[in-house]
């Protein structure tokens, strides 16, 4: 925290003040000073902050970059930026211009910003121990090639990203080579690529976020030791859409998440030792689609409710454990009344193989003929892994404890 010291000054900026531009205020400020910017429109770009100062906007002043490139660049530790509306970032195909860029800095706080007409939003580069809180980023992205990310972390450590609202950009929140990042209470919606995107980032936590109608909800790629809890991921529709993509992810813990109405709830590939527990998969096309090379994963205590397909598999080999889940498609019985079905449940249908091979056959979903072949496959598995089953399917839906 950058508490102004007893010797610090406050410099006020407004249209009728002696200091009329933020640029001028920054130049005059010395370490530890506070710049108070009054309500108004400031047409300034390429503001470089190279000392530990606090910039506070009063009544949400607007900084209009007029598409001249980057707007604010922070290159000092302990800088606070609070309460601005920042618009018109320059778009370039060679340089990733951002509304706010933080380079090689520590102890920053970026909060209560509203970003519009942007390319990249908040770009953190090799910066550690900072916070990005309660910002609103609203882009106008149409394709992923002409747009940037709302909150972008590259080689960062120990950053808290909380309470942000990111819409219509390429990736809502993007992390590459960033570790120990906490992502909580964010709302990421209508982004053209991913709601949240991890590449080569380890030991991160994703809690209590909502991801809705993005190209895909969360993409976790080439990362390990992740914790994904209490998120709501819904309505990611489309041919390449999924709620959560796990690609080469190891030792992750997915708990208490809700996946609703996604084309695919989770697509998982080459990921090992994951624990999926207490999640709800409701009305997805596929709840979990396993694309291969996934070992020692545990899928326990989840609710699988009214998905077109519960689990889809590529091969016949299975090394993953399904146990104690509730499957709304389960038709078994419980004669000993212990709440666990007496016959195992096989979540992989033969038809899902057919659909994998010839996608258009999806049109026959739920037809009597398909039910018949699925039934015969269930009785004597030929194409599906015969050991892939939940031996203890629950008879009642699990009431998860969500605090």
């Amino acid at each position, binding site marked *: 925290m950058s508490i102004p010291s007893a010797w610090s000054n406050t410099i006020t900026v407004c249209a009728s003040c002696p200091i009329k531009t933020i640029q001028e205020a920054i130049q005059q400020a010395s370490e530890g000073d506070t710049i108070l910017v009054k309500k108004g429109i400031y047409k300034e770009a390429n503001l470089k902050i190279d000392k530990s100062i606090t910039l506070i906007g009063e009544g949400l002043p607007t900084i209009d970059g007029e598409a001249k490139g980057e707007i604010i660049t922070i290159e000092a530790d302990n800088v606070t930026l609070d309460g601005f509306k920042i618009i018109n970032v320059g778009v370039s195909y060679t340089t990733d211009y951002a509304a706010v860029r933080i380079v090689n800095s520590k102890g920053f706080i970026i909060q209560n910003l509203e970003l519009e007409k942007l390319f990249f939003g908040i770009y953190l580069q090799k910066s550690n121990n900072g916070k990005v809180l309660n910002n609103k980023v609203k882009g106008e992205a149409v394709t992923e090639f002409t747009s940037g990310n709302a909150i972008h972390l590259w080689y960062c450590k120990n950053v808290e990203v909380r309470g942000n609202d990111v819409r219509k950009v390429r990736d809502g929140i993007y992390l590459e080579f960033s570790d120990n990042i906490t992502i909580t209470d964010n709302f990421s919606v209508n982004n053209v690529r991913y709601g949240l995107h991890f590449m080569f980032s380890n030991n991160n936590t994703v809690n209590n976020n909502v991801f809705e109608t993005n190209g895909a909800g969360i993409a976790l790629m080439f990362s390990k030791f992740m914790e994904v809890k209490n998120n709501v991921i819904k309505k990611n*529709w*489309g*041919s390449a*859409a999924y709620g959560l993509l796990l690609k080469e992810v190891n030792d992750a813990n997915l708990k208490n998440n809700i996946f609703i*109405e*996604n*084309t*695919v709830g989770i697509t998982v590939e080459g990921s090992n030792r994951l624990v999926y527990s207490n999640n709800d998969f409701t*009305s*997805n*096309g*596929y709840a979990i689609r396993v694309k291969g090379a996934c070992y020692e994963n545990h899928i326990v205590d989840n609710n699988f*409710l*009214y998905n*077109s*397909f519960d689990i889809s598999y590529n091969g016949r080999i299975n090394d993953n454990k399904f146990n104690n889940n509730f499957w*709304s498609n389960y038709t078994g019985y419980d004669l000993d009344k212990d709440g666990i079905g007496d016959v195992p449940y096989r979540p992989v249908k033969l038809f899902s193989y*057919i659909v994998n*091979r*010839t*996608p*258009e*056959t*999806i*049109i*026959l*979903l*739920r*037809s*009597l*003929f*398909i*039910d*018949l072949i699925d039934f015969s496959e269930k009785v004597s598995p030929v194409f599906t892994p015969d050991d892939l089953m939940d031996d203890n399917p629950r008879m009642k*839906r699990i009431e998860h404890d969500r605090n």
Partner: protein
Amino acid sequence: MLKILKYSFYDLMRSRWSYVYFAFYLLLGVVLLFLNNDLSKAVITLMNVIIVLVPLIGTIFGVMYYYSSKEFTELLLAQPLKRSSIFLGQYLGVAISLSMSLILGLGIPFIFYGLFMSNAIWDFSLLLITGVFLTLIFTALAFNIAISNENRIKGFGYAILMWLFLAVIYDGLFLMSLLFFEDYPLDKLSLFGTMLNPIDLSRTLILLKLDISALLGYTGAVFKQFFGTNFGLIVSFAALTLWIVLPVLRIVYKSKRKDF
């Protein structure tokens, strides 16, 4: 026609079959809801029942009614009535009484369960509408078969065969042809194949509601347009309507040329 419809309807409302049918749906609704306690699951199970059983019952009932009311029909034929009104009246009498049994039989338990408070009401209404369409279609098809076959055993045989074909065999052939031509773009073919079978059409309508997430996972442009917009809904309903109109027209055509 309305008079014939009225008498056929009264006649059926008094026959024990209507009650059996009604009781069957009532029981089904009660069992699904109160043993399961899960409205969404009940709706899904009902869908399976509706697309298989409603056509079967419509078929059997239609053929049965046509044959059993043959003498009555002859009595009517000697009256100053148009042939088309006699047959259309009887057809509508059967189809409407079956639809009523369906709507009331399923509707009552669902209303008691608190359907109006639930957002499953749209899925449920779609189910019932589809059920009514299927009843109208299969009763018309059954009348067509009966009107073309004097021999009851043959008529029943063909009717059951027709049901079996449309409910099961067609999809088997459909699936095989899709797999056989898998190297070609298939989205048009698969949608076209669906239009040719009223059971598949109704199933598609229900899929649009229940499985839209899965359906949107496919890349074909025609698929996308069909499932992603209201286009699919409109086309399906139009095709279903056509499936009623064509057999009914054939009833009129055949009845005008038939000897009794």
